[in-house]
C-alpha cells in the first residue's frame, strides 16, 4: 500500500516538475528576442575584432616582423632597394595575403611596430573562387572590393584607431625575453619596447 502511495506521490511530483518546466518556457515565450535578423540588421564589430588582414601601405617600414611571427605563413613580402632623388629607399615589390591559410590569430597586428598591418572588421568574406582570397595584394587601395563592395580602407583605418591590441604603455623595465642560460625571474613582466624600424639604408643583404 505504501508502495502505491509512494508511486502516486512520485507521479504527482513528476507532473508538477513538468509544469514548472513549462512555466519557464512560457515565461520566455513573452520575453523579447535576443537574436538579430542577420542579413538585414548587422552587428557592429568591436574595435578589437579580428577580421581580414589589412594594410596601410604608407606606414609599412618593411621590418618583416609580421612575416616572421605568422604561424601559418599567410603573408608574403618582398622588397627591393630603390634610389630616388639621390636617397636610398626600400620599396615593397610584393605584399600579399592568403586568407585561406590565415588563422586570424592577430599576431601580425599585435607585433607591427607602426600599426601598419591591422585587422579590419570584415566578416562576410564569402567568395566564389579560391583565387579571390588566395592572393590579396595588400598594397592595393581596393583590395577587398571584390569581396565586399562597401569596403573602404579609410573607414577601416578609422575604426582601427580605436583598437587596443598591440598598443601598450611603454615601460622602462628590461624585456622579458628569457635566454637559455639565465631565465628571467622578474616579478613584473613588462613589455619589450617596440622593435626599432630597420634602418632605411640597409646593406646589400636585402635583395631585389
Amino acid at each position, binding site marked *: 500500500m505504501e508502495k502505491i502511495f509512494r508511486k502516486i506521490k512520485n507521479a504527482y*511530483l*513528476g*507532473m508538477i*516538475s*513538468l509544469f*514548472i*518546466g513549462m*512555466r*519557464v*518556457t512560457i515565461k*520566455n515565450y513573452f520575453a523579447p528576442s*535576443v537574436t538579430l535578423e542577420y542579413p538585414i540588421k548587422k552587428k557592429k*564589430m*568591436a574595435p*578589437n*575584432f*579580428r577580421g581580414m588582414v589589412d594594410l596601410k601601405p604608407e606606414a609599412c617600414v618593411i621590418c618583416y*616582423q609580421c612575416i*616572421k*611571427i*605568422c*604561424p601559418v605563413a599567410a603573408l608574403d613580402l618582398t622588397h627591393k632597394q630603390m634610389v630616388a632623388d639621390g636617397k636610398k629607399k626600400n620599396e615593397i615589390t610584393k605584399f600579399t595575403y592568403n586568407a585561406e591559410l590565415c*588563422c*586570424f*590569430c*592577430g*599576431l601580425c597586428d*599585435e*607585433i607591427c611596430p607602426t600599426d601598419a598591418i591591422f*585587422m579590419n572588421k570584415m566578416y562576410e568574406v564569402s567568395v566564389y573562387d579560391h583565387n579571390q582570397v588566395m592572393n590579396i595584394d595588400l598594397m592595393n587601395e581596393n583590395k577587398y572590393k571584390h569581396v565586399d563592395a562597401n569596403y573602404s580602407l579609410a573607414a577601416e583605418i578609422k575604426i582601427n584607431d580605436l*583598437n*587596443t*591590441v*598591440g598598443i*601598450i*604603455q611603454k*615601460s622602462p623595465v628590461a*624585456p*622579458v*625575453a*628569457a*635566454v*637559455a*642560460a639565465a*631565465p*628571467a*625571474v*622578474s*616579478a*613584473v*613582466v*613588462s*613589455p*619589450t619596447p*617596440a*622593435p626599432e624600424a630597420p634602418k632605411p639604408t640597409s646593406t646589400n643583404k636585402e635583395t631585389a
Partner: protein
Amino acid sequence: MTEIIAKEGLRSEELIVNMGPQHPSTHGVLYLELRLDGEIVVDCRPHIGYLHRSCEKIAENRTYIQFVPFTDRLDYLGSMNNNLGYVLAVEKLLNLQVNARVSYVRTIIAELNRIASHLVSLGTFAQDLGAYATPMFYCFRDREKIVELFDEICGGRLTYNYMRIGGVQTELPAHADKYIKDFIKYERQKLQEYNELLTYNAIFLSRTKKIGILKPEVAINYSVTGPMLRASGVKWDVRKDEPYMLYDQFKFDVPIGKVGDSWDRFKVRLDEIGESLKIVEQAIQGIPAGNAVAKVNKVFKAPPSESYMRTENPRGELGFYLVSDGGLKPYRNKIRSPSFSNLAVLPSIVRGLNVSDMVCVLGSTDIVMGEIDR
C-alpha cells in the same frame, strides 16, 4: 518461412550500426561502431582520428609564441583555458613569474570561459536527450554574453589567442568590471531557470539517473579527469588540490556527485558554473592595478629542460609536456587532452545500455573531437 524456422529455430542476429562520423549526437566526427542486440548495445568501439591535424608536429615547427593560436583549436569550446595551460607550461619551462594582475586577469577570463564551455555542454546534453533546442538556445543565449565580452577584449569569438607568455594580449576594457558583475547577477538567476527546466524535470531524471554509472576506481584507472571524475565522487580538482596561478587565494567548493551517473555529471557541471561565478566575483573585486599586457616576444630560447603542466580545463586536466633542446622551438610538445581519456572509458560504461542511453552517456561525457584527435 515457417519451414526455415521449423528447421533452424528462431535465430537472432546482432545488428552493426555505424554511428557517425556524421551523426547528430556524436559531437563532431566521432565514429562509434555499435553492435546491437535489438536496441541493446553489446559492444561499442570508438574510432577516432577524423580531425587529426598533428598539432604536436606543428608545435615542433613553430616558435613558442606561434603555437598559441593552435591551442585554440584543440578544445574549441575552452580556448582560453587551452591558451592558459600552454602558456603556463611555457612559463614553467622558462621558470618565469608573472605579476599578480596577470594572474587575476587570466583567472577571470579562464573561469568565464569555463562557464561558457559548461553552458554549451549542458545545452548539447539536453539536445541529445531530445529536449528540442530550447535548453540549448537558453545556454547559448547566456554564453553569448561571455563571448561578446571576449570579442570586445581580444577580437575573437571562438579562437581567442589571448594569453601571452608573461601576460595577456590586451587589458580588460574599462566597462568590463560592471559588465562582469552584471553577468554574474544575471547568470545566477538563469541557473535557477535551468534547474527548473531540466535538472529536476521528471523525464530528464528518468532518462539520466542511474544511466552510465562510472565507478570512482574505474574512473581513476582510466585516468578520467574533470567533471566526469568529480561526478563519480572523487573530490579532486587541480585548482584546489594542486593550485596553480592564484587559485589558492579564492574561496570555492568542488562539487562532487554521489553515484557517477549521467545526472551527476550534468549536475556537477551546473554546480561548477556557480563555483566559477564565485571565483570570478572574488577576482573582479580583488584585481590589483598594474600592467597585464605582455608584448609578443619575438624570439626567445628556452633552456634545455622539460616541463609538465596540467591545468583544470572545463573537460578535465589538460596537460602540456614540453621538452626543449635549447632552441627557438620546443623539441617536443605533447598534449594530454582530457577528452581523449574521457572517451576511452566510454565503451566500458555503455555496454548493456540501449541506444538512447548510449547517446545520453556520450552527451554527458562532453567530449570535443578537436581535442581528442589533435
